[in-house]
């Protein structure tokens, strides 16, 4: 597949999969490929030719308008395609913010650990700092990664997130399930290390992990039942 086709495919990525959109995509590819080949035959390099084709391509807004996926004058409410684009952008931003917050928290936890053990000489404070800050950081990272992955899949299927939140009563239970389970597993890990380090009892302490898993399972079943009854 040529670069031009790839470029246009990307532009049509979030378009509804209708016959009209497919036809429009095909026509745009035809003429852009013609132009690209003409430019190559006039001695332009592939990069230059692609640059010119992209530069003279125009804006997808016109196409959206024509295909009726974003009708003009529909007031201030955004049309579905624009909404998807916006949510996609917002999703990426949220993920980046969540990830960096998580990483900063982890680094702070580590720094606190070093500070308390080397300067204050307090093992308890050092371990607390590591697990508390690092733990919260890990929760933030896990949570933002999970929600990013799920929401991205939804957006790729062309389903706006706001619609889901409005129409799907089970949404908050699924969210709660994710948060509670990651907290349980994190708590289990923290407890495992504490019992191991302070009590030297690594051996029976591993039981915490299967127990955490079972607890997660029970909670998810309960939350699902609540979601259904709603």
């Amino acid at each position, binding site marked *: 597949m040529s670069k031009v086709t790839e470029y246009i495919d990307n532009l049509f990525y979030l378009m509804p999969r209708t016959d009209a959109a497919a036809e429009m995509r095909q026509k745009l590819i035809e003429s852009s490929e*013609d132009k690209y080949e003409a430019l190559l035959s006039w001695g332009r390099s592939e990069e230059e030719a692609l640059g010119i084709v992209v530069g003279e391509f125009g804006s997808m807004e*016109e196409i959206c308008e024509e295909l009726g996926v974003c009708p003009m004058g529909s007031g201030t409410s955004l049309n579905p395609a624009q909404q998807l684009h916006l949510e996609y952008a917002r999703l990426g931003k949220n993920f980046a913010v969540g990830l960096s917050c998580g990483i900063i928290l982890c680094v702070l936890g580590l720094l606190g650990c070093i500070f308390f053990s080397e300067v204050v000489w307090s093992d308890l404070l050092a371990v607390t700092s590591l697990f508390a800050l690092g733990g919260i950081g890990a929760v933030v990272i896990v949570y933002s990664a999970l929600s990013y992955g799920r929401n991205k899949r939804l957006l790729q299927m062309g389903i706006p997130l706001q619609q889901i939140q409005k129409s799907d009563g089970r949404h908050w239970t699924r969210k709660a399930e994710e948060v509670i389970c990651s907290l349980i597993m994190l708590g289990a890990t923290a407890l495992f290390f504490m019992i191991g380090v302070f009590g030297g009892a690594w051996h029976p302490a591993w039981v915490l992990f299967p127990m955490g898993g079972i607890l997660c399972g029970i909670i998810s079943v309960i939350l699902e039942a609540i979601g259904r009854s709603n």
Partner: protein
Amino acid sequence: MISSDILRGYNDIIVLGLLIGQDSYGYNLMQEIAVRSGHTWQMKETTLYSVLSRLEKNGLVTSYSGTETMGRKRTYFHITPEGLDYYQQKCAEWIETKQLIDRFTLPTLLPASIRDESPVQYPAEVFRRADEKH
């Protein structure tokens, strides 16, 4: 620099005008537009195809797929009798519009009677420049 907002209403006649007499395909139309405008203006790909799609929806052009000697598949566009009617209407509209705007931008084109009655005192400069052009 011509703003695309002003041209927006006339993209239809640009495209229809090129289809009179011979059917054509996307890239060829864009080339023709570039040549006729003396390479001073280039219609964007998305503009051309949204215009064509609208014209087709309104029955002013039809499309069919054909192959050129090079073997690549191409969509050709053909102007319908309704399209021709519409083109002529739009051309007449443009001539009227042009004459109206000329009356405000080129006061020398006004008949002397109107020019003399006009309460607006046009600076001599305006007439000299306009006269030089004509």
